[in-house]
């Protein structure tokens, strides 16, 4: 069962940047300013790059005929292991920025831990590649979060609404699935449960600086890492996978 756990864990690591890339790419041509359009699409490409590294690694686990493309284009909703936060609609720019902020604070923590403490050298290699880009993305979201939170009344209201809607999906990501528990025991993956407090404190401190509240309402107990998703993922996959499913094996 060890190899199966590693495969699922790699999908858990790969699917969030994959789905996030898909969502970010929806901004192409629609961002509020040209420079933001370029930044978001660049970010999407970076995230896709991260997903590819991990899907390539995951493909080496399974016997038989699989590769990164088959994993990306032929799995169904219940087989996807992305954090549900990443499949939520882009909404307005405020929603996207808050979503990216929540996502990248987590990503930075996760990949820093992998880089420093994983016993898998290949995964550590991936960490060395993705971490600088994640830091860049986080800097972007943080800069925009500050400007929107302290900007106009309207920008602040939109940020408050975004936080209210999105925080609901955040805490569950710290719950470990059975596969992750195995890989934590193996030293492959860090136990992110032990970092939940640090995450929440980091966010809370930053929000204090920006006069933003952290909601105290009940939160979801499913993260998506176990395969339970919102109604949105089906639509994302329908679009993302449509071409390959209609014409399997199609190449550029």
């Amino acid at each position, binding site marked *: 069962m060890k190899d199966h756990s590693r495969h699922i864990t790699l999908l858990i690591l790969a699917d969030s940047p994959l789905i996030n890339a898909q969502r970010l790419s929806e901004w192409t041509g629609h961002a509020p300013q*040209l*420079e933001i359009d370029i930044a978001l699409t*660049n970010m999407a490409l970076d995230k896709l790059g991260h997903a590819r590294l991990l899907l390539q690694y995951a493909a080496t686990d399974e016997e038989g005929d699989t590769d990164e493309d088959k994993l990306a284009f032929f799995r169904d909703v219940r087989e996807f292991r992305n954090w549900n936060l990443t499949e939520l609609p882009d909404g307005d720019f405020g929603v996207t920025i808050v979503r990216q902020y929540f996502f990248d604070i987590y990503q930075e923590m996760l990949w820093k831990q992998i880089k420093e403490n994983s016993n898998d050298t290949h995964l550590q290699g991936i960490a060395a590649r993705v971490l600088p880009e994640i830091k860049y993305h986080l800097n972007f979201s943080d*800069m925009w979060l500050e400007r929107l939170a302290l900007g106009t009344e309207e920008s602040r209201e939109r940020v408050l609404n975004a936080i209210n809607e999105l925080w609901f999906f955040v805490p569950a990501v710290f719950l470990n699935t059975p596969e992750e528990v195995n890989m934590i025991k193996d030293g492959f993956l860090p136990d992110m449960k032990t970092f939940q407090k640090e995450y929440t404190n980091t966010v809370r401190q930053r929000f204090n600086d920006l006069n933003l509240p952290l909601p105290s309402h009940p939160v979801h107990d499913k993260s998506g890492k176990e395969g339970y998703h919102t109604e949105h993922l089906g639509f994302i996959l329908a679009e993302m996978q449509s071409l390959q499913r209609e014409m399997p094996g199609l190449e550029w």
Partner: protein
Amino acid sequence: MEWKLYEVFIRSKKGLHHKHAGSLHAPDEQLALKNARDVYTRRNEGVSIWVVPSDQIIASDPGEKEENFEPAKNKIYRHPTFYDIPDEVGHM
């Protein structure tokens, strides 16, 4: 939104000078720098980025090219090339 126009100058890894890469709009200095990195270093990473608000650049008037930039080569009266240097002096 009134976003200010900035000129972007980038020095590449192998270069010694910042070269003018183009311009962009941004609401403030920090984002101007960030946007410059996103817009102008997509394919080749530079090592140093300068952004300057366009209205801070004082530039020569292109219409006055002739007066300002006539090369000194054509002004032979400016060059000390009419002296005979005695042999005892040697090379100068």
